[in-house]
């Protein structure tokens, strides 16, 4: 190598070193890239994806207690104010749509709100049971539900009590709208999260 080559190496090292020194200042003003999302799930009694129903039997009797856990993970890159809305639906009622990000028109039975720090995981115990049920010929109607020791009057019907579902929707507070909205934006895309668990409502055996 001649002297000019060595000079080039010296100048390059010098420039890279200066750039490295200034990099924290430059990086501080650059937006953090990466996918932003929420994760929503329902976990069983031991905070695992199992044991959702007593004796693993989805035929739920009046008064039979179910212990679920709502799991939510904030990966939005900042603090977020969220609400999880629980809705009781039958098989024919409109469920949320992940493609169009539209929520279920059914009114919510229960709502829980939480402010989540970036990358925070929150597990919320959701214990519930059917407290009142009515039957008219082959139609079963759930008229009262208890969630976390709170009683709620509802009206949800299903033929022979089959195929009820508890739907959980994730709503995020939007400061521009000044209200909660179903789903969230990441770049130009709109995303949403919901989940559901099916069960059958049965009358106690006489």
């Amino acid at each position: 190598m001649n002297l000019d080559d060595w000079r080039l190496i010296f100048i390059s090292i010098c420039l890279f070193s200066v750039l490295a020194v200034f990099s924290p200042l430059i990086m501080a003003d650059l937006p953090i890239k990466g996918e932003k999302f929420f994760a929503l799930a329902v976990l069983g009694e031991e905070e695992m994806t199992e044991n959702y129903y007593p004796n693993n039997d989805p035929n739920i009797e009046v008064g039979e207690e179910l212990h679920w856990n709502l799991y939510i993970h904030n990966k939005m890159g900042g603090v977020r104010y969220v609400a999880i809305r629980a809705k009781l639906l039958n098989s024919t009622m409109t469920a949320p749509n992940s493609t169009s990000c539209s929520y279920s028109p059914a009114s919510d039975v229960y709502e829980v709100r939480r402010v989540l720090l970036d990358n925070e995981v929150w597990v919320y115990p959701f214990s519930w049971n059917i407290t009142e049920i009515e039957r008219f010929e082959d139609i079963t109607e759930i008229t009262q539900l208890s969630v976390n020791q709170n009683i709620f009057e509802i009206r949800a019907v299903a033929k022979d009590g089959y195929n009820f579902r508890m739907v959980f929707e994730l709503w995020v507070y939007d400061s521009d709208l000044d209200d909660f909205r179903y789903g969230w934006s990441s770049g130009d895309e709109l995303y949403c999260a919901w989940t559901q668990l099916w069960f059958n409502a049965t009358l106690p055996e006489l």
Partner: protein
Amino acid sequence: MNILKKSYSVFCLLLALNILSPIVFGQEIIESDAVLILSETEDSLENAYISLLEIERAGGDITELVKILNTATGYYSEALRLFESGEYVLAVELADKAIDSSNVILETDVRMMSKIEVYRGIGFRNQLYNAIGTSGIIILLSFLGWKVFKTYHFRKINGVKPEVSVDES
């Protein structure tokens, strides 16, 4: 005698009204008050959250404030449930607690934001001065290093240079 009977009836009626009015009218007032206070609480919580966003964007630590706001949202959710079950007085009490907690955040926001602005300014300036100083030292050391290297390089070249016979004739 008739007047006495009438007076007694009027007295009983007034007494009944006096006893029943707080129950009948008072409940209505409390319900409408509760609706108003719950609405105020929701606004207050949302404002507190917006303050948190601002503090976070400014680079402040919001961990403790988030805990306070979550306590407030807990009070608010409970207040809503109590309201639904007709326990307006308890609902209003919890809603007031939620507003108090939100106000802690809003008050902290004003104090914290001014501090963050000052600290951020100082922090950025210090970082910039440090970077300029370090870069100066790097450039200077590189320059000196280059000088030393060049001298060493020339000596090395001269050392390996073949001797040339000089014709002195």
